[in-house]
């Protein structure tokens, strides 16, 4: 799902042909996300079909023409919408949220901070749900297997808490960076 937006994000910066697109992708998120050319081209195909990307042909000597991909206005809109939407799948936070951070416009931190806020709220709600479930579990007679369920919920709580703390740190560092630039 996110490969679409990653490609849209890269194209939003400048027009690229497939090969450069792959290099740029590797440079930015290659550390934890590896793609082959096939995956890239099939994604580009689908994006073109959805009208989010178009391409121009560039003539080459001794070789077939190269396709230079360009993001359409619809593509830009789709990208912006995605960026502003917090991640719902909690476990996927670091993967997906990080992609978003990468493609956020550096000169304008406001949307980033807004995103962090939304993300934290989401996490808090998630923690609250987990806590409610734990309380409900406690209320039922301490049956078999309830301890393991409780421990699992605890694990979820601690992970989510770690995410919230990380997000809080992100926010603090971004703010500090703004202050420093000024």
């Amino acid at each position, binding site marked *: 799902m996110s490969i679409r937006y990653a490609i849209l994000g890269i194209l939003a910066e400048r027009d690229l042909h497939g090969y450069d697109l792959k290099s740029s992708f590797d440079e930015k998120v290659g550390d934890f996300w590896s793609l082959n050319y096939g995956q890239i081209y099939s994604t580009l195909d689908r994006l073109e079909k959805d009208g989010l990307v178009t391409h121009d042909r560039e003539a080459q000597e001794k070789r077939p023409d190269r396709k230079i991909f360009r993001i359409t206005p619809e593509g830009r809109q789709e990208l912006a919408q995605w960026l502003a939407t917090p991640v719902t799948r909690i476990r996927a936070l670091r993967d997906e949220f990080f992609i978003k951070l990468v493609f956020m416009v550096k000169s304008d931190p406001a949307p980033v901070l807004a995103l962090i*806020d939304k993300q934290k709220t989401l996490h808090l*709600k998630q*923690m609250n749900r987990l806590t409610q479930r734990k309380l*409900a579990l406690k209320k039922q007679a301490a049956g078999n297997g309830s301890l393991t369920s409780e421990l699992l919920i605890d694990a979820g709580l601690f992970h989510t808490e770690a995410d*919230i703390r990380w997000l*809080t740190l992100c926010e*603090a560092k971004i703010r500090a960076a703004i202050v420093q630039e000024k």
Partner: protein
Amino acid sequence: MIELRHAGKTYQQGSREVRALRDVSFVIKKGEFISIMGPSGSGKSTLLNLMGGLDQPTSGEVFIDGRPLHGITDNELTLIRRRRVGYIFQFFNLLPLLTAEENVGLPLLLDGLPFSEVKPRAADLLDKVGLRQRAEHRPEQLSGGEMQRVAIARALITGPAVILADEPTGNLDSHTSEEIFLLLKSFNDQGQTIVMVTHDPKAAAYGTRIITLKDGAPDQDIVIGGDNP
């Protein structure tokens, strides 16, 4: 229950003016368990102090049960603190010389009740927080979790309109913290209004409503429907 209308608080620190709280408005309804979150310096404790009548706002209004906390004399404020508010602090703030029982009964003793009358009520509450055996112990003989339970019992003894908790588990480990929250939650389930200030998301998650503060003003007000996942 508790209502803040454009409440603000400004401190004078040397020649500098510090706006600890600016224009806070919200209503806390009976039976709510509110978590107030925010980073250090966001005005959490100031807000709690205003709600508990430990401090008075420099602007705006604060009401408990429809009664104003602003513009009243210190004595009236004191009486409200004594009878309508129960406090739980991060560092427990028990009087080290008093036994658990006396610490629990202190608000009633302050109200002039004879200890013979206070004692059974304190014993009852100590029983409820699971410290029946510890009534005669002094704080130094209790563990951190036990001290905080004594503090909870103390906060409850007057049957207050609201319990205000300031980082109640800031000094406790995770498991002990959970026990404290379960205790608070159980009193909340019986209808006790609780307002808790914390920067711990796990703690905040016990609330039925989470208010986050940023730079002395409310940022988000998250109301959580009880059971929907």
